[in-house]
């Protein structure tokens, strides 16, 4: 088991490296630097700025410098907001995004999983059909349609919840964003779980359990569910990725100061360091998350440990 963990860990490092490298070079190769946007900039001032930010150095030197800084935890200053370093911006925004993302993930897994299990046990009955219908709706309607609709309904028509803003992290401000973020994943998890449970309940070892007179509870929860969970655990990785993607929309529409929004603004403003910083942070996070998921999977399924 330990060997498995170690192997997985070591294979994550080249991936991270690759991502950082590709992002760096893509950005530098792209036409238009951060200071080309501003028209009428005195060429001398521009040259000075570029020197200050080391943009006049040869590319490979910039790259090595960047790697070096990264290892020291320095993500560089924001080009467009010169009073802030990228790290500072993140320190403010990251916790917010993580709060939203983690809550949404947990909500999606728990509620989606529960619905999926219920649907599988009541196959072809009305409750099954309603779960399938909801799941189809939830996974088809895009986030950027659901968000404004929810704002319309709950924020304006019923006026139960604020339409947007973070409000210092008050619960009422978190409800709509979290639900919007969670909904598509909840739908996907519900369908996955339903299918997975149905498969599991049909398997031979469940037949054995029944033949041995084990109680329904034991059959469903102890045996069928444990096997059925595996595809859901595998899906947690892509789910987290989808949530990160979704956070861009949600943070924009609900005006939440998280790093998703920073990313979009940084992209539009050609703020190199901000964009790079976001990519690096996201990549680290995703790889770490996937590592945890892999380990979790191996804990549940012993056959995988000798992979």
């Amino acid at each position, binding site marked *: 088991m330990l*060997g498995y963990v170690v*192997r997985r860990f*070591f*294979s994550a490092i080249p991936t991270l490296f690759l991502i950082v490298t590709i992002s760096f070079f893509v950005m530098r190769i792209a036409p238009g630097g951060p200071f080309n946007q501003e028209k009428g900039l005195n060429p001398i001032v521009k040259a000075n700025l570029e020197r200050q930010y080391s943009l006049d150095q040869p590319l490979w030197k910039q790259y090595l410098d960047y790697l070096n800084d990264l290892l020291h935890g320095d993500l560089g200053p924001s080009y467009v907001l010169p009073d802030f370093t990228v790290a500072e911006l993140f320190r403010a925004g990251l916790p917010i995004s993580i709060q939203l993302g983690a809550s949404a993930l947990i909500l999606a897994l728990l509620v989606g999983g529960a619905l999926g299990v219920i649907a599988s046990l009541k*196959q072809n009955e009305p409750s099954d059909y309603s779960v399938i219908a909801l799941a189809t709706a939830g996974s088809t309607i895009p986030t950027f349609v659901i968000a404004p609709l929810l704002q319309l309904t709950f924020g304006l028509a019923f006026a139960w919840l604020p339409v947007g803003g973070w409000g210092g992290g008050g619960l009422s401000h978190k409800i709509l964003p979290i639900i919007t973020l969670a909904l598509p994943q909840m739908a996907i998890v519900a369908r996955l779980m339903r299918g997975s449970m149905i498969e599991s309940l049909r*398997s*031979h*070892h469940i*037949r*054995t*359990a*029944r*033949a*041995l*007179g*084990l*109680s*329904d509870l*034991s059959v469903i929860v102890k*045996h069928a569910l*444990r*096997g059925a969970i595996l595809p859901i655990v595998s899906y947690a990785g892509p789910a987290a990725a989808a949530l990160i993607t979704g956070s861009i929309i949600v943070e924009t529409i609900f005006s939440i100061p998280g790093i998703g929004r920073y990313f979009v603004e940084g992209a539009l403003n050609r703020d190199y360091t901000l964009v790079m910083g976001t990519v690096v942070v996201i990549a680290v996070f995703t790889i770490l998350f996937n590592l945890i998921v892999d380990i979790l999977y191996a804990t*549940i*399924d*012993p*056959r995988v440990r000798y*992979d």
Partner: protein
Amino acid sequence: MPGEEAILQVRNLSVRFRTMDGIVEAVRDANFSVAARETVAIVGESGSGKSQMMMAVMGLLAQNGYAQGLADYRGVDLLKLTPRQLNHIRGRKITMIFQEPMTSLDPLYTIGDQLTEPIIRHQALSGGEAFDRAIELLDLVRIPEARRRMRSYPYELSGGQRQRVMIAMAIANNPDLLIADEPTTALDVTIQAEILALLEDLQKRLGMGLVFITHDLGIVRRIADRVCVMQSGKIVEQGATERIFTSPAHPYTRMLLEAEPEGRKQPPPKGSPTVLEGRRIRVSFSIGGGLLAPPPLELRAVDDVSISLRRGQTIGIVGESGSGKSTLARALLKLLPSEGIIRFAGRDLADLDRAAMRPLRRELQIVFQDPFGSLSPRLTAGQIVSEGLLVHEPSLSAADRDRRAAQALAEVQLDPSLRNRYPHEFSGGQRQRIAIARAIILKPKVVVLDEPTSALDRQVQKQIVALLRDLQDAHELSYLFISHDLKVVHAMADHVIVMKDGKVVEEGDTQRIFDEPHHPYTMRLMAAALSGEAVPDTPQSADETRTFPLTR
């Protein structure tokens, strides 16, 4: 023994399924009973309803199935019980074991966990007491190192060992009745014999009734007191084993008994040339490996095997799973990479690449075991059969090819007008005929038959065997007949090679091998296959070599 009180009485049992095509009747009006210490065999071919009947008694039918009638267990009608009430009887008084040992255990829990669960559930034992009882049971079913095995996971056990664990779980609570649904069909023949011996032993010790479902008449003759013969959902005949075997009344029963393959193959005339030859063939696979992983394992599938096939000869290659017989055959046909010398009609095949090999391919053909998997699902029968002509006689027009396909189908006794049908529209036996037609349309010299009849019913098997014989006579074919079914090999082959773990253990004239085997493994094989006996005092060597090493 018969005469004792009946434990289970089944009266007018019918089982039906609600399907998209309407109501399907799986079992019609079945009547039989089982007494304590009695073994009743339920015999039938696939689709006879034998499994569904007992699944209904146990309340294990699929959601769309329902049963009517009476299944009386000591005064209680099992069919009228709720699942909750059934759960008090299942696993405790009546238990069932199934055909697929590889998938019948929960892969995510240890053997110990799974074994103690039914014990704790049905008896008021503590965890520790259940643990001890479990170890006793493992000893009873002859699993060595029981204490350590409690911590193993199913994937670390072989098929035979998993079946033993299943049996242990089934008898854990001293049931009155054990229902065994083809428990040995998926196992090798020597292991089969051991499991049968175990079941007999347990039955005597625990005084249980035993219902044994099977299609294998050899097993029936060995262990059953009474027999029920089923066909298409009905019990067409039942009675004491002796009587059924010596004077069967129903035509179907008679047909089943006569479906044993018979006849003998005469060796080819002296001086007939060698057509296919293999010298010191070796085939290895490496498993696992890759970046950052432990180094790969080398598996010797075929280890230094030499074989020589003469014109008009049929060599039977026998062995159990993992013996390398299929791998050897494919290596000889250059469908797999191998080391060693391969010669066809004196010509060395080793250096030939794919293109150079092509013209020779028409002389070396193969028929596979699975009649469904070996036919391309999106081609018609005619197209499948004539594909070889596209490669080897490209000058033929489409109409000519069609005619040749029709001829080939007729030769395998299939109606040529069916040649525009697709594989899924044919039965298993018909598909195998198509596969044979595909092989012989090119007028080959050598045909490798890799378990060609193993997936077929006995009756159909007999027909295919007869067909293969006719074809061999008509076209002077040489066969390599691979099978684990010794009875068929006895009828088809004039020379037999016995393989185990990639090596040739013994070979010789068919009659000699069967009548006077020299090697201990051959002896075990013959004993198990022909009379269902497990030769006593052999260690479970076959089992052990296939196990993964015990971990931790």
